[in-house]
C-alpha cells in the first residue's frame, strides 16, 4: 500500500483551473482533478455538480474555455474524442456506446481493426486479439457473440476490453454499476482491482457511497461546478463526504409558502410495477406541494408515468377525493384531473408544428368545440386567459412554439395543463435547464397554484428546490419509498442519506 502510494505521487492526468461556460450557466468553474496511476479516484457531487461535463472535457467532447489539462506533466489540448483516445483516455459510459448488431470482437476493434496486406480486416487476427484482451480481464465471452445477446454487465466488459485495446492509461467509469445486479457489481469490482494492478488510472463516478468506500483510493468533491476538496478515502467518512457535497451557500430565494393542512385529494395505495417500482403508498393533500427526491434511476419518473397512465402498474389502487379511480391511459388521467408536465420539454412537451394557442388548447379541445367542430375564437380566449396568467412572453399566440425560448416553452406546456383545470399536477424536474429568472417565475407560480388549492407533485433532483418548495418530501431509492420527510427534518443531508441509502445516522439531531 505504502509503496504504491509512494509511486503514485505524480498524476497521469491533471486538470487545472478548468472552466467551461454554456450560455447562462457556468458548468465548471476553475476545477481541478488529478488522476494517479494504479489508483481509483472517485468524483463525488450532486446532480449538476459538473461531473458529466468533466468527463466530456476529458474525453474531448467539450473544449474548456480556460485552464490546462496535463498528461504526464505536459500540457495537452484534447479537441476531439480522437485526441483523448490517442492520449490514452477512455470512458465507459452509463449507457454503453457500442453496436448491438456487431460481434464482441468487432465492437472491441471497430475503427482500429487489424488489417491484412490487402487492407481488408484480418478477422482471424482480430478474434484472437480480442480473445486475449477478454482473457486479460477475465471475461468469459465468445468473441463471435453478437453484442445484442449480452447483458449490460457483459457489455461493460466489452467496453472495457475496447478501452484496453487502444492501450488506455486512464479509464473513466461514469456510474458503471447503475444498471448492474449485485453479482455483476462484485465482478466489476474485481475488474477494477485488475486494472489497478495494471497501473491504469481510474476515474470512478458514482452516487453510491458504499461503492466509493469500497473501491476508491482517493476522492474529489465538486459542488455547483466548483472544486470543493480532494484527499484520500481513508481520511474521510460518509458524513464528511455528504457535508462537502451539500454544504452550499443559499443563493436562490424561494417564494413564501403557507403550509395549510387540508383534506386528501389524491391517494395512492400499494402501487407496484414488475420491474420499476414497488410498495408505493402516499397521499397528496389539497394545496400541498409534495416533493419527490431521489437519485437518477430511483424510479421517480417511472412512477409518475404510471400514475399518469402511460405505463400500467401491475397492482395497487388510487383514489381521487375518496373515489377510486381507474387510470389506463393519459386520457383517463386527464379526465380524472391529473396532469403531467414531463421532464424533457423538447421530446414530451410542446408540439413544434402547432402555434402557441393550439398547443395550449390541445388537451382541452372538448371545451373549445361545439358539436365536434373547433371554435377558433374560443381557443384563442382560453389560450389568452392562461398565457396571461403565466406571463407568457410572445409576440402573438399564433406564433410558432419553436420560436419561443426554453422558459417560455415551459410556460406554454404548463398553460396547456392548467387550461384543463386539473386537481393534481405532476411536475417532473420543472426547472431543469432553464435560466434563473424563469426558474424563479416557475417557483412563484407553483406557490400561487398551491395557494389556490391545486395539489402539486414535484419531482426534482435539485436539493435546494426540493427543500425550498416542498411541504413534504418523499425520497425514493431503488424503486421504493425510502423515507417521507417533512418539517424540521427536511435537511439536505437527510435527503442525500436516504437517497444514497446510508443507514448510519450519527449527529443528525444536532443538524
Amino acid at each position, binding site marked *: 500500500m505504502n509503496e504504491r502510494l509512494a509511486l503514485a505521487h505524480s498524476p497521469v492526468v491533471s486538470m487545472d483551473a478548468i472552466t467551461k461556460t454554456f450560455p447562462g450557466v457556468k458548468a465548471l468553474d476553475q476545477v481541478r482533478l488529478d488522476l494517479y496511476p494504479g489508483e481509483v479516484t472517485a468524483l463525488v457531487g450532486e446532480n449538476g455538480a459538473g461531473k458529466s461535463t468533466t468527463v466530456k472535457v476529458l474525453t474531448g467532447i467539450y473544449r474548456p474555455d480556460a485552464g490546462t489539462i496535463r498528461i504526464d506533466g505536459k500540457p495537452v489540448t484534447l479537441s476531439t474524442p480522437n485526441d483523448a483516445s490517442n492520449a490514452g483516455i477512455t470512458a465507459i459510459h452509463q449507457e454503453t456506446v457500442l453496436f448491438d448488431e456487431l460481434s464482441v470482437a468487432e465492437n472491441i476493434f471497430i475503427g482500429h481493426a487489424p488489417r491484412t496486406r490487402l487492407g481488408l480486416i484480418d478477422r482471424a487476427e482480430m478474434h484472437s486479439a480480442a480473445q486475449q484482451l477478454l482473457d486479460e480481464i477475465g471475461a468469459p465471452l465468445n468473441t463471435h457473440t453478437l453484442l445484442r445477446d449480452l447483458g449490460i454487465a457483459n457489455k461493460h466488459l466489452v467496453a472495457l476490453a475496447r478501452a484496453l485495446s487502444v492501450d488506455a492509461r486512464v479509464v473513466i467509469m461514469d456510474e458503471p454499476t447503475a444498471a448492474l445486479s449485485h453479482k455483476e457489481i462484485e465482478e466489476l469490482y474485481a475488474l477494477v482491482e485488475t486494472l489497478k494492478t495494471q497501473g491504469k488510472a481510474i476515474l470512478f463516478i458514482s452516487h453510491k457511497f458504499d461503492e466509493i468506500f469500497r473501491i476508491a483510493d482517493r476522492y474529489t468533491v465538486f459542488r455547483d461546478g466548483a472544486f470543493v476538496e480532494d484527499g484520500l478515502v481513508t481520511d474521510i467518512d460518509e458524513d464528511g463526504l455528504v457535508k462537502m457535497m451539500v454544504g452550499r451557500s443559499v443563493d436562490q430565494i424561494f417564494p413564501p409558502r403557507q403550509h395549510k393542512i387540508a383534506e386528501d385529494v389524491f391517494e395512492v395505495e400499494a402501487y407496484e410495477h414488475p420491474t420499476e417500482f414497488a410498495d408505493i403508498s402516499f397521499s397528496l393533500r389539497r394545496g400541498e406541494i409534495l416533493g419527490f427526491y431521489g437519485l437518477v434511476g430511483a424510479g421517480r419518473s417511472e412512477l409518475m408515468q404510471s400514475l399518469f397512465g402511460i405505463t400500467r402498474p401491475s397492482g395497487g389502487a388510487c383514489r381521487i377525493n375518496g373515489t377510486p379511480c381507474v387510470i389506463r391511459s393519459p386520457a383517463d*388521467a386527464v379526465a380524472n384531473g391529473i396532469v403531467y408536465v*414531463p421532464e424533457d420539454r423538447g*421530446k414530451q412537451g410542446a*408540439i*413544434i408544428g402547432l*402555434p402557441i394557442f393550439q398547443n395550449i388548447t*390541445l388537451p382541452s379541445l372538448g371545451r373549445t368545440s361545439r358539436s365536434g367542430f373547433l371554435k*377558433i375564437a374560443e381557443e384563442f380566449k382560453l389560450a389568452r386567459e392562461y398565457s396571461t396568467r403565466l406571463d407568457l412572453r410572445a409576440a402573438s399566440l399564433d406564433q410558432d412554439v419553436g*420560436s419561443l425560448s426554453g422558459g417560455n416553452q415551459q410556460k406554454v406546456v404548463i398553460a396547456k395543463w392548467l387550461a384543463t383545470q386539473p386537481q393534481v399536477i405532476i411536475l417532473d424536474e420543472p426547472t431543469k435547464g432553464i435560466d434563473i429568472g424563469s426558474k424563479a417565475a416557475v417557483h412563484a407560480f407553483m406557490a400561487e397554484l398551491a395557494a389556490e388549492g391545486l395539489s402539486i407533485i414535484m419531482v426534482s433532483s435539485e436539493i435546494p428546490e426540493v427543500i425550498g418548495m416542498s411541504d413534504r418530501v418523499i425520497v425514493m431509492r431503488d424503486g421504493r419509498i425510502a423515507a417521507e420527510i417533512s418539517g424540521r427534518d427536511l435537511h439536505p443531508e437527510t435527503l442525500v442519506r436516504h437517497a444514497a441509502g446510508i443507514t448510519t445516522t450519527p449527529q443528525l439531531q444536532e443538524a
Partner: protein
Amino acid sequence: MLPRLIPVRETVLAAAILLLLILVASRFSGFVAPANLVNVFNDTAPLIILALGQMVVIMTRCIDLSVAANLALTGMVVAMINVAMPDLPIPVILAIAVLLGSVMGAINGMLVWKLAIPPIVVTLGTMTIFRGIIFLISDGKWVNSHEMSAAFTGFPRAVVLGLPMMSWVAIAAVALFGVMMARTPLGRSIIAVGGNPHAAVYTGINVGKTQFIAFLLSGALAGLTGYLWVARYAVAYVDIAGGFELEVVAACVIGGISIAGGIGSVGGAVLGALFLGVVKNAMPVVNISPFWQLAISGSAILIAVAFNVRAGRSKGRIILKRAEAPS
C-alpha cells in the same frame, strides 16, 4: 405576426403552377382555354383525392403504399358487382366502394397500431396482397365497358353545373378534409401525432389510434376513387393504376407535406397534385417528350424536399443549442 410557413410554401407552389401554365400558353394558347383547364382538373381529380388521404397518413409519420392496389381491387369488385347486378343503384355502389376501401385501410391501420409493424412494410405487403386478390377473383380477366351498365359508367362523367361528377367528388373531398384538418379535434390530433408523438401521448392523444384513423381515411378515399376510376375508363383489370401510389406520394411531397410528419396542409396536397396534373397534360401538347415529363416531375420532388429541409433547418439550430447545455 410572423408569416406562417405553410402559406408561404403554398404560394410558391401556386406561383410555380401559374408559371408553368404561362410557359405552356406561350407555345399553345389553347391549353389555358377554360374548357381545357376543366379537363385537366378532371383528369387530376383521382390524384387529388388520393393525395388527401396520403397527406393525412404521411402527417402521422406513416406512409400508405397500398392506395393504388386498394383502388384497383375496389374497382374490380364494384365492376363485378355491376356485371352481376346491373340494377344496383349508384349510391349503393358508392357506399360499397367506400366501405371496401375503408376495410382495406383499416387492415393497414390495425397492423400498424396493434402490431407496431413499420407502415412501409405493412402497406408494401398489403399492396401485393390486394393485387393478388384481384387476380384471384377475376381470374386475370378484364371487365370491359360493354359488360358495365350505362348508369355505372355514366356517373363520373355526368356534368353538373359545368363540371363532371368526378371533379365534384374531388372538390367535396377537398372541402371535407379542409374542414377536418382545420376545425376538428381529429385534425389537430393528426398534426400533433406527427409533430411530436411523445408530446401527443402526454396530451392524452392515442397515437396508434390516430394513425389507424389516418389509414382508414386513406383507404376510404382509395375505395371511392376505385369506383370512379373503373367507371370513367370503363375497364377493370389487375394492373389498373399500377405504380400510381408513387405519384400520390410525389404529389404530397411536392405539396410540402413533410415526410417526417407533422407538417402539411390540404392546400399543399391539392396544389402538389395539380402541379403533377398540369405537367402530365401540358407536356404532350407542346411536343415535349415523356422523358422530360418524368424529369420535370422528379426535379419538382427534389426541389420541394430541398425547400422543406431548408425550412426545417432553423428548428435544428434551436435543438443544437439545447443539446449543448450540460446535463
